[in-house]
């Protein structure tokens, strides 16, 4: 007889509905994972594309006769049609300081809204620019017998110079047309302090350890790292100066990716941290 509803039919139908429901439930958990993956892909790819553009082009404005020095003044900034940070020769990964400093989240420089409009970025961004000059302190002398040009530090009551290890490293770095002189001292084999001066007379200088801020010529720098690797301890001092934070506040409820790009600014390394969401 046709159309009979019996026990077997009901059991079969119930099983079918159960199986269908399981499949739908599984699919519903897979989809968010997929969409998250797709979102991450989109974030990474756009971040890469935009940072490549910033680090390989000079940008362009249409003010006056046009040009690549979009950071020059308000007119050029307001008429920027392409955004790039490299110097005006379009040198890859060679960034110009003025262009970095012209980025200004809320103005008066090139604002974050301008950035979004010009680059047509679909996602949100936060950039952090940190300049990291390196000081070559390969040369050394025996404490107490410096080269004639060097006057050694005095003995600070808390951190006397005369109880540091015998080998003292020294070097100089030219930043913004000015010389910064460094002595690097060790204690028990670990180079942990540096003295900074604008000339070779360190008699009035106090020791600075990693993380300390110093101010010479009116600009603050941080002693980021003193090299203590086994093979050449004391031969390198890395400074750090935070230049600029530019972009939106991070939305921690979104998927946020972070990447680091690196470039050269005034012959010294520049680290660019990029958050994208």
């Amino acid at each position, binding site marked *: 007889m046709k159309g009979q509803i019996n026990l077997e039919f009901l*059991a079969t139908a119930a099983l079918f509905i159960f*199986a269908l429901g399981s499949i739908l439930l599984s699919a519903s958990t897979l989809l968010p994972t997929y969409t998250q993956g797709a979102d*991450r892909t989109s974030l990474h790819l756009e971040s*890469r594309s935009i940072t490549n553009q910033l680090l390989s082009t000079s940008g362009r404005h249409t003010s006056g006769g046009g040009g690549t020095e979009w950071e020059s003044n308000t007119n050029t900034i307001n008429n920027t049609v392409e955004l790039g940070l490299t110097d005006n020769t379009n040198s*890859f990964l060679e960034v110009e300081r003025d262009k970095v400093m012209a980025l200004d989240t809320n103005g008066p420089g090139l604002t974050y809204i301008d950035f979004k409009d010009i680059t047509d970025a679909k996602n949100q961004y936060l950039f952090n620019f940190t300049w990291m000059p*390196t000081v070559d302190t390969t040369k050394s002398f025996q404490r107490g017998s410096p080269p004639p040009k060097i006057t050694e530090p005095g003995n600070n009551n808390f951190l006397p110079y005369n109880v540091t290890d015998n080998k003292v490293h020294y070097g100089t770095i030219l930043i913004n047309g000015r010389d910064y002189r460094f002595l690097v001292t060790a204690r028990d084999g670990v180079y942990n302090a540096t003295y900074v001066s604008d000339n070779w007379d360190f008699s009035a200088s106090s020791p600075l350890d990693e993380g300390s801020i110093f101010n010479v010529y009116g600009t603050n720098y941080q002693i980021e790292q003193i090299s203590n690797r086994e093979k050449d301890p004391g031969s390198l001092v890395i400074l750090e100066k935070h230049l600029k934070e530019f972009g939106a506040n991070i939305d921690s409820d979104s998927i946020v990716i972070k990447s680091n790009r*690196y470039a050269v600014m005034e012959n010294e*390394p520049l680290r660019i941290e990029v958050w994208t969401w």
Partner: protein
Amino acid sequence: MVERKGLGYVIEMVVAIGTLIIFTLGQTPTEPVQDWNSFEKKTSARDLTYVLKQTGDAQRFVKNRQTGSLETAVQTFSDRNLEVSGTFLNLPLESTVIGFHTTAANRKTMNLVDGGGSCSGDLEEIQSEVDGTIKRTQSEEHGVTLYFGNSSSNIGTGYDSLWVDNGTECQFSDAEGPYFQEEFFKWGNSTNPSEYDYYDFKDVSGDSFSYYLANTAVNLKQVSGPRLNNIKTFLEFDTINVATANLSDYDIISFRGGSGVNDLDANNERVESFMSNNKGVIIIANLTEPDLDGDFMSKTGFRWMDLSFTGAISGTKFSDSIDSKQLETYYKGLEAGSISLPQGGKISSANSGTLTQENYLVSSQNGEYDTDQWNSTDYSMIETDPSTVTGEPDSTCYSSTADALTQATFSFETGSGTEDFNVLNVELGDTIPYCDDRDVRGVIIDRDKDGDYSDENLVLTGETITINERKYVPQPLPETGSREDGQALEFIYIGNNDIELVNYRTSFEGFQGSKIARIANADYNDDQHKLIASIIYWMTDDSLPFGDESESSTSTVMLGGVKNSTYMPYKVVLRWH
């Protein structure tokens, strides 16, 4: 009926579910597979490689052997996200220890006695730095006494420090001490500045002071560093007795003079074992032909060239070989000028499989070996009926002209006399007009002297043949008024006839090893010493690894060059972790 319907429902359900699953799986997109960490690491690695090069930091690290600073820089720039390891290539940056074998005559001992002798009561400078009694040498070298003490910083009780009173009458400048064991010191007299020698302070045992003559080591140390082309290098020099030293502590050992070569042969097994670990030997000696029969020298592969010269030996030149170019680069990097060198024996490096060295390391700018005596010529080759020859090559020219096949016996130099070979001189062609119009000839040599030429190679005019380790080109001489075609044939030696001044081998006939170099023994000036120093650099490993040796999925390469007195290219391979 009902049971079959129930079973049917089950089957239909299973099929339906299976269909749904297949459809769903087919439509469900898979999660995009991408390792974004690796992606970002690669991007950062490329950026940092460029930055390190553009800022000049990489070049500074390479020039100063600062692998640690490179690792620190990467770690700091990346905010501890990245570590780097790798290798500096193509520069002699690896630390190298050279041991100079000292012959018995130059391994000296001298008795010590207590007290300051003529300086008694006047040795406060020394006494303030030592414990216990001061000793002095019982006799003198160059009219100068040495003083010994047990330095206060020394845990043991031995006499580990010495001072040289070089005529300054119990006054000791920094240059006069203290010198410690295994340090070089100058034993001389300030009243006669040219009278001195350098010695290596070996040991004080009881009242016996042992010391090795160290002039060679010190002279080379003074010209070889600490920088080559403004690149920091790391060479250590020591004097040794090859019979007793722990040779595994050294990368290169050197022997000087006839006595040195005798000691080399006497300790050949130790030296061969040393070389088997990819090490090098430098021989600074004038050699004679019998010297090449020594227990070690006979296995090196060096050969004797029994030839006279045309012209006089003067000046030096390098060849276009990679080894010679590298040596020349190091020589220029030491800012050396033009020099001349003695030959010190008619030695051929014979690396090329022939007696003479095709790509020499250093040869005389002027003068050459007179190799004409190695040529072999016959002007009276005899016309021969091909039917009387076994294994003659096919040629239609036999029926064209009687001189299409000639033969003669040629003598070839062996080094200890000559060796005769029968030679066929054949006109080749496959048509009579060809034979008439041209005169293409080839030669066949009966090397195995069995009278059968079928197992020998036909050598055409202009091709090269090697006979008794010498390269020749067979050159049939054309007919003249007094001779026919095919009647005259000359084997012309075409090997290199440059006079080598620095011999070298990179493979050996009796043992494994890295490199051997030989240069004459003479009283050398600074520039000549720089050439020997260049040989040391040439033997130095030109790769300097650093950091974690594990593999990495991300690597970059940086190319650069150091330009100072010469240009030295380098490569840095970086692995990112």
